[in-house]
């Protein structure tokens, strides 16, 4: 700057001030900052509010061992006691079955889209269908399974039917995230593998998928967290039971969302209200644990893209 000034033949005394901001720009800057911070605060208010309400109203039941180890058998809405064991197990079992069905299909589908079908008409069709599936509301998925499972095949309402409808909701989430992760794997890795004479399937199995593993697991966890709070399939496809039922193929089954729904109708009674809040907090904690696990996995195994 000084060099330029020295070269000027005549210095007219005017200084181009680059140090501070002009009034209007300073104002715009401040305004934008304030707006952004405000937007952030507005977005945080409901979140913190919900968290605070649920935690403050629900935590005390969670502190007792009974909550984690007992069912609600014989506990009417007027009585205190019992736990959410039946519902926690129901939620976990249904989520586990969902994952067992949905994850392999989703990962293989993503491998097809990225590695084999790139640009083909079939891949475009699959991709389009997945987009549609992403937008299917949970109640539609539930009614579809109801139509197939109960109306056509004449089976009873069971936990497995819920898992089937949750598969429809989880599949697109996991498939899309896996697809993105596989796309992030640098082509150089694949080419290096091919150059060494490794066949394509082995490259995918030993190079591409392991490289993207962290991201895939994150997607799976997020997909699980998404379906664990779904309520519509539970309402339509399985009856709520206060008793422990660990068999997803027979009988009614408890789950945290339906446990909340069951006692929600009795909020006038303090014992029932306590259980509703505690069940809500338990569900939030389960989903939170899954999300944290996903974050941890992601941190320890991110793809280093250049």
């Amino acid at each position: 700057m000084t060099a330029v000034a020295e070269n000027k033949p005549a210095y007219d005394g005017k200084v181009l001030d680059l140090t501070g901001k002009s009034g209007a720009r300073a104002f715009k800057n401040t305004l934008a900052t304030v707006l952004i911070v405000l937007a952030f605060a507005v977005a945080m208010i409901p979140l913190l509010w919900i968290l605070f309400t649920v935690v403050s109203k629900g935590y005390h039941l969670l502190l007792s061992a009974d909550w984690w180890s007992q069912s609600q058998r014989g506990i009417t809405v007027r009585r205190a006691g019992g736990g959410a064991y039946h519902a926690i197990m129901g939620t976990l079992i249904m989520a586990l079955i969902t994952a067992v069905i949905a994850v392999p299909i989703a990962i293989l589908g993503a491998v097809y889209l990225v590695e084999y079908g790139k640009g083909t008409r079939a891949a475009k069709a699959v991709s389009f269908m997945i987009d549609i599936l992403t937008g299917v509301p949970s109640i539609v998925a539930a009614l579809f399974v109801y139509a197939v499972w109960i109306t056509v095949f004449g089976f009873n309402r069971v936990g497995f039917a819920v898992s089937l409808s949750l598969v429809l909701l989880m599949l697109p989430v996991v498939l899309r995230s896996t697809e993105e992760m596989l796309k992030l794997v640098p082509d150089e890795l694949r080419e290096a593998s091919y150059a060494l004479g490794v066949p394509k399937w082995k490259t995918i199995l030993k190079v591409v998928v392991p490289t993207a593993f962290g991201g895939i697991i994150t997607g799976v966890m997020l997909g699980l967290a998404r379906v664990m709070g779904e309520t519509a399939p539970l309402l339509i496809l399985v009856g709520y039971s206060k008793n422990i039922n660990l068999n997803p193929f027979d009988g009614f089954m408890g789950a945290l969302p339906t446990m909340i729904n069951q006692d929600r109708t009795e909020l006038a009674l303090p014992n029932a209200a306590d259980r509703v809040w505690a069940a809500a907090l338990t569900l939030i904690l389960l989903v939170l644990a899954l999300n944290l696990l996903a974050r941890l996995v992601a941190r320890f195994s991110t793809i280093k893209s250049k």
Partner: protein
Amino acid sequence: MSVNRLFRVGSVAVASLGVLALSACGSDPEPTGSSSPDSSTSSAGAECPQGTLNAEGSSAQKNAIEEVISKYNEKCADVTVNYNPTGSGAGIKQFNANQVDFAGSDSALKPDEQTAATKRCANNAAVNLPMVIGPVAIAYNVDGVTKLTLDGPTAAKIFQGTIKTWNDPAIAKLNAGVTLPSAPISVFFRSDESGTTENFTKYLKAAGGGAWTGEPAKKWTGTGSGKEKSAGVAEGVKSTKNAITYVEWSYAVDNKLGVAQIETGSGTPVELSAESAGKALAAAKPADASGKDLAMKLDYATKAPGAYPIILVTYEIACTKGLPAEKTALVKSFLSYFVSKDGQASLTDLNYAPLPAEIQTKVDAAIQAIS
């Protein structure tokens, strides 16, 4: 990579350990109180089968059946009874679709429902077993009004929407000395198909003096805004000033709502109590004199002094024949406990009225006839 792998194995191990730890220690809570079964238990259903019984239906009897299930489990610990209070309409549908073993309903089966139920019971009749009597309260939330009296025609006009404000002359006439606000009346009704709605509209039709123009039905045809389930309408009235609804008595009590007295034409307005509901019940007769079907015929327009006219009888609907043997044993065992003295005695605390002894005997006989 090795760190990754280690972490991968580690996280899976931790997750599965967590699940295992949780699954290792689950149990049912110990029955509360002195759980030793009463030695004087009625002879009916003396033995306890094993298994799971699934039922669904009326939310009006939810509190009653939950209490009875709890008591029943003190006696028969190996039976699991699930009851989903999704509404009478849903209960009958699920029963007819072979999804549950018996249904709870606030009204007896209609002819077309009976046809479907017969099909479901492998071409055997399904039976309506009156089990619980629940008074329906006209519950309101009006500031400063602790005592409200209504009669049939006024109630019908309010729920029809022809009376729109609280200080309407028709209401004022029945409530001399009560300051009624000029605010509009917000009516809440059950948005789901409900036996409570059907019983209440039967009352409005019978006692409304022509002011109720619709036919009695599970679906509401009057005015107002809909809320789901008994708890929904109770909550709606609780949170809305100048609101009114019809709801099972226990929900009105639990939500601390005002309950209207009914002027039946007997001269003095009748307050809702177990006693006044029982009086109306004494007038109830089985609809079918032959005694085969136990559906009750209630006299909603009763003018008997001290009788509260709006009551509903909730039924259990079960197959007379055609269920698998082990389910039959379970249904018989549970329902005969429900109708027994012990079973019925636990209901009064929950703002239900027990069945009269004569009807108890008949219902028990019908249950014993299930095979």
